[in-house]
């Protein structure tokens, strides 16, 4: 047993118990305890890093039930995630001590975020898909609890419900995929003494598995896994929950809905990448097309939103699309695609956490006023925070030499290589979507930033805002430093994930300049409109295209008003009607059983002679039955 590996997720679990138990009496200690426990995870992850460097991947497991095992599997991929999750989570916890300092229930908040971190780290190091799924559900639960943390706000309560229900759709499909995989592995001779759903077994024997179960079946399994990933990572069309989830505390949005939990789906696809790779071609193609379509789709919707957090939420959806499409490009690039995707995942976690927390600092100063139309001129009022927001925005739009530039433009270049290799129309789509997505990213990011930072304050609150104390901002500085410099480790990172990784080559210079050109256009256009007061004079509200975007392409309308209210609710009512009829018969059974019990009780009348009569009659009857049955 390699204990530091287990300690990675056990430490925040202890933190969960302690910060709630002690925090009940001493509210201020809760945050410190939770942060310390996550520091423990970070240290354990770093120690494990050294261990993995010297001895290779760690696989500790024990038999759990039947032929399913449980345990930890730590290789380079899970280490990268573990270090990223514990580091970002630590930074966010530190900032949350400031952000939540006046909340009366902050001990519950910290206990829940510690539990969330435990679940997320457990998911990262789990050695078996069943255990993985358990942690997957645990983070889902924590997400539900934390979105609804301010449950007294009706919006928050319904957002929590929506998040829970929508992700459940994906989870169910994931579970079906697991069951299908398990079922089709019965009788597989390569199984040996392995557990059928053990992750190391699946990834090392993927080609043999594919030969045994057939490429098409494995492809269906892979697509079901992708559906699970889409629910958790909020990909089209299951992305509708994440903008609503912004009703929770901003630190929660930073931790769960930007940096860690929503990347769990990407991690799942990366984790079992070999299953995708060795299954039918449609599996990885659906990954790339889903990712790139979501990237542009969410980018477009982001253009029509005014709420600062929701803009960031749509940007998260779009960026996760980039990660997924990078992995999907693995159909051509093999494991190198995973390297591309994982690097963007890590970089995105850092700069998105930075963006969310600077937004959080703004919201604290503005008493939770989230409408960007009412901000303005904040760069003068709160220079530190807005500079941090600016750094985050630069990384998000992949401004040259920031970390986002290295991680994202590599993916766009790779998608061009993908097209150049296949040369078909459908292989052109990823590049088209991703590079147009880059334009959208620039547009919505600077639309938000210029509105927030430039001009004159457009509300009383904005006029009187000021920076939080510099101590509270320390974690943000750390993240800002990361956002600017992480690009330096690009090549070492790729080689760490997969030693054969290389940068996409043979991309024409013109093509390489396309994203940069889009970036330049985007900045100029947004400055012209939103850097000045021009946007106030524009009125698109009658334009049908504007309406379409403003209503998020009617997807929310479709799900909530049509699917839920018109279809599921009447259906449920119909079932209720049937059930009421049926219930009556069930209740009848119950009351009859109770009556029968009464009759039995009367037999038990306390007269011992009767007992013997019943005994003799009963046993004789049983004897006769046995003898009769024995004859036939």
């Amino acid at each position, binding site marked *: 047993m390699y204990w530091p590996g287990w300690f990675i997720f056990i430490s925040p679990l202890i933190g969960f118990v302690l910060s709630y138990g002690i925090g009940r009496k001493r509210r201020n200690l809760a945050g410190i305890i939770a942060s310390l426990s996550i520091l423990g995870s970070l240290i354990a992850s770093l120690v494990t890093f050294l261990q993995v460097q010297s001895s290779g991947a760690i696989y500790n497991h*024990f038999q759990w039930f039947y032929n399913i095992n449980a345990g930890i599997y730590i290789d380079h991929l899970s280490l990268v995630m573990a270090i990223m999750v514990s580091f970002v989570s630590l930074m966010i916890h530190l900032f949350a001590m400031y952000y939540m300092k006046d909340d009366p229930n902050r001990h519950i908040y910290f206990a829940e975020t510690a539990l969330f971190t435990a679940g997320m780290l457990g998911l990262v190091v789990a050695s078996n898909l069943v255990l993985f799924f358990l942690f997957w559900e645990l983070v889902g639960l924590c997400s539900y609890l934390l979105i609804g943390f301010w449950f007294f706000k009706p919006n928050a309560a319904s957002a929590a419900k929506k998040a829970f229900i929508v992700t459940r759709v994906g989870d169910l499909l994931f579970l079906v995929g697991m069951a299908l995989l398990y079922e089709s592995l019965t009788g597989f001779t390569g199984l040996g003494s392995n557990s059928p759903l053990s992750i190391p077994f699946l990834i090392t024997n993927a080609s043999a598995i594919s030969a045994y179960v057939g490429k098409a079946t494995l492809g269906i399994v892979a697509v079901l896994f992708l559906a699970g990933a889409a629910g958790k990572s909020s990909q089209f069309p299951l992305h509708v929950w994440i903008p609503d989830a912004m009703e929770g505390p901003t630190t929660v949005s930073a931790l769960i809905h930007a940096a860690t939990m929503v990347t769990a789906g990407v991690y799942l696809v990366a984790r079992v990448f070999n299953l995708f790779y060795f299954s039918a071609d449609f599996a990885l193609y659906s990954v790339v097309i889903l990712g790139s379509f979501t990237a542009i789709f969410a980018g477009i919707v982001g253009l029509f939103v005014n709420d600062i957090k929701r803009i960031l939420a749509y940007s998260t959806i779009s960026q996760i699309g980039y990660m997924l499409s990078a992995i999907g490009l693995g159909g051509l690039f093999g494991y190198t695609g995973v390297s591309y995707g994982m690097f963007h995942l890590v970089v995105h976690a850092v700069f998105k956490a930075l963006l969310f927390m600077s937004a959080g600092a703004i919201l604290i100063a503005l008493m939770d006023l989230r409408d960007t139309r009412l901000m303005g001129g904040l760069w003068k009022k709160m220079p530190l925070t807005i500079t941090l927001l600016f750094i985050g925005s630069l990384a998000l739009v992949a401004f040259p030499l920031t970390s986002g530039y290295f991680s994202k433009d590599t993916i766009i270049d790779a998608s061009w290589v993908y097209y150049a290799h296949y040369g078909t129309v459908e292989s052109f789509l990823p590049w088209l979507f991703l590079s147009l997505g880059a334009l959208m990213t620039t547009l919505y990011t600077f639309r938000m930033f210029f509105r927030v930072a430039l001009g004159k304050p457009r509300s009383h609150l904005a006029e009187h805002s000021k920076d939080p104390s510099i101590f509270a901002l320390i974690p943000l500085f750390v993240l800002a430093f990361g956002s600017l410099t992480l690009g330096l480790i690009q090549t070492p990172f790729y080689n760490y994930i997969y030693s054969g990784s290389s940068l996409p080559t043979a991309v024409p210079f013109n093509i390489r300049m396309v994203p940069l050109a889009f970036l330049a256009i985007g900045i100029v256009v947004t400055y012209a409109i939103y850097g000045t007061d021009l946007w106030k004079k524009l009125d698109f509200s009658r334009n049908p295209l504007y309406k379409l975007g403003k209503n998020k392409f009617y997807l929310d309308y479709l799900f909530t008003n049509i699917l839920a209210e018109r279809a599921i609710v009447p259906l449920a009512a119909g079932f209720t009607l049937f059930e009421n009829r049926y219930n009556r018969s069930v209740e009848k059974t119950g009351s009859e059983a109770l009556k029968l*019990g009464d009759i*039995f*009780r009367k037999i038990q009348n306390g007269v011992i002679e009767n007992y013997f009569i*019943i005994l003799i009659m009963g046993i004789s009857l049983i*004897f006769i039955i046995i003898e009769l049955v024995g004859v036939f």
Partner: protein
Amino acid sequence: MSSEILVTSTGLHALSYFIPVIFLSLVGFIILAMGTRNTGKSIMSWITFFTLAVGGVLTYLLTPIGTSIFGGTLVFNSFGLYFALIMIISSMFICYPALKGLTAKSEIFYATLLFVTVGMILAAFSYNLITLFISFEAVSIGTYVLASFGKSRRNLEGTVKYFFTGTIATAFILLGSSFFYLGTGTFNLSILATSIATPEISLALIFLIVGFGFKLAIFPMHQWAIDTYDGAENSVSAFLSAGSKVLAYVVILKVFLLGFSSDFKDVYYLFVILSILTMTYGNISALSQNNLKRLLAYSSVAQAGYLILVLAVVSSTGNITSGVASLAIASGMFYSLVYIFMKGGSFIALNSVNHESVELADVSGLAKKSPALAVSFAILLLALAGIPLTGGFFAKYLLFLSLIEGGLWWLAVIAILNSAISVFYYFRVIMYMFGRNPVGDQEFDLTRSVKVPVYASATITVVLSLMILWFPAVINIASGLFG
């Protein structure tokens, strides 16, 4: 099958195998002597407790695993050891809570408890109908004495019923053993190679199930149990429904799986019918029960029905060395282990009510007075119902799993339906505890002798769910049943 190689041992040094038994009996006599000097009852309870603990350790250390003595009459194996330890624990379990009901002659209570335990240990290792009968009878007579402790008429009435039915059961056992001898020509229990289903064997089957089934309280031999559990002191009810039931269970396992291995077809039909009737009868009668002690008594009848499902599985496979048979027996063993804590603990939890007869309404509002006790009691009830995260869940899970593996899925469906029914009345108790206010100025007895055993059993019940990891070891022991 068994990895333990049997060594036949004769001669005087066989006496050394009985050190734990001799030790327990000696201390029993010492306690009797102490009674004449008016020693305090709590001292005696502690002495008994530690004696049993030492006895348990001695049994564990000194039992010569893999030895058979007196021509196969007694066989020491880890299967017997497992049950001997369970029964010792169940005796230890009531030492402390029994203090509450003892008003006089406590030395007799504790000495008898020790003697009963001696009988139980011997029965666990016996593989012969005569020694089984003697040790079984030693336990029966001891428990008549234990059940009579208490002050009320109800109490005496219960004891007398127990005594009468017990005596009749004895007669059935003796007659059954004679028929068994007529059919097989031996009293020893060992696997018979040839299949013989003579009328004598069939009669022996019926007579022995009546005789031994009394103590396990299976339908239709269950009726004394309701009155006696209701009338006796809570701790004695706990013992009767836990330790003494496990004894009957291990005896039934041995007699019917070994002695009647030649006639598995009849054994199969017998136990299928008995288990269905027992489960259903126990659960349905408990539904409308308002007397809490009787409710638990009926639930205890139902649990006996689950326990004997094991015999149905094993006899249906017909092959005692098969994996399914081992799984079934091991699940029965695990069930017995969990069962003594969940059932014993629930009866002891009733000590918190200061009435003689405990109605459902008497526990209402317990959660307000002592949340910890109410939660512990609730855990025990949930375990009995087989709700996950308790040992009771895994016990039922494994049992039903063995049913399905053995191809008796329809029986598993009946058993699961029965469990579902049982949830109703267990939850009813929980609803009363948590959802209602105390009746009048109801005072609960919340002294340590009530709380500690209940907390302990609730904790153990939960911890036992982790023991599932240890289950493969139990499967290894299970094959020891067959000598």
